[in-house]
């Protein structure tokens, strides 16, 4: 999402059988971790986002609240909601994403009866 623009549904991949606010939270968190959403970026309001994504405003409100709880977003009264400029919060979220990815790798390894290292080696074999 370029600064000053609204999101569109193309920015997200949604599974209709999982809570929507969870998925928006995860995907916006990833955008912040990757730097696609830069520190200090002003996010569109709840109303604008709900309207452009065509989702219930409550969903967007819960998403923003959850990301604020994770210290990735900050809201200044009367000014709007922004991506945090706190490096530490973004780092924590990057670590979290790395852990999740490694856990998935471990589970795949386990399901094949391998250690993660063996899985890694196997993938690199000619």
């Amino acid at each position: 999402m370029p600064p000053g623009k609204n999101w569109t549904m193309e920015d997200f991949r949604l599974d209709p059988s999982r809570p929507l606010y969870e998925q928006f939270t995860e995907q916006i968190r990833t955008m912040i971790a990757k730097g696609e959403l830069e520190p200090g970026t002003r996010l569109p309001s709840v109303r604008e986002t709900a309207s452009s994504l065509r989702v219930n405003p409550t969903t967007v409100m819960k998403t923003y609240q959850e990301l604020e709880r994770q210290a990735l977003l900050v809201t200044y009264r009367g000014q709007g909601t922004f991506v945090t400029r706190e490096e530490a919060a973004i780092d924590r979220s990057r670590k979290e994403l790395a852990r999740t990815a490694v856990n998935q790798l471990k589970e795949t390894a386990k399901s094949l009866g391998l250690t993660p290292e063996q899985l890694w080696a196997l993938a690199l074999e000619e």
Partner: protein
Amino acid sequence: MGMTKLGRAGAPAIRCDKVEVSIKKKKVLNQVAFEVGAGCLAGLLGPNGAGKSTLLRLLTGLLPPDSGSVELFGAPAGPDRLAEVSFLPDRGQLPVYLSAGEWLGFAARLYPDWSRARERELTAKLEVDPARRIGSMSRGEEARLQLLTCLSREAPLLILDEPFTGVDLLSRERIASAVVGEMADGERTFLIATHDIREMEHLFDSIVLLGDGTVKAAYEVEALRESGRSVESCYREVFA
């Protein structure tokens, strides 16, 4: 504003209990009971012939129930509550010989709760051309004008009957966006009857599934997703 003053504070926007209606000896609604909280966007889902339109006629005061109670904001529904309900009828016909602008001029004088500011904002948002004659509009354009008529009022309860029938994708998206924009302040309640959930699935707070004149199931949508189900899968389970 202050349109909800007739009701009890905290009462649901809609409350039906043990509602029964028979038409020509056939039971069209049978022991229908459900609630829609104020500020919610609820879907009334079900196949054609399920009794949706009859139920909406009760809510809008066009038809009294044979028995049971129908309440809006804590007080009985009826013709005297029309000021609180903005209704978009299924296959409603606007006068074909008028332009959109002329029609909106009539509507503004017809409805005491009409907001010219809302009308202007929504005319732009829904991309309605005031100069265009209604008779020469596509189904999608006419549907957008009908929604514009419905949303330009300040009534606290909006009831839309099949707002998407025969409407093209882009019009559907504009309609869905406009509905969301109108509910964001949490002061308006929507009940949208549809058998077509495509553009609306992400919008609903709750759904009521009506089939053969009875409520087959009712869910809070995010709770449904917590249990790994979607609105669509749920619709299939109940009606397939």
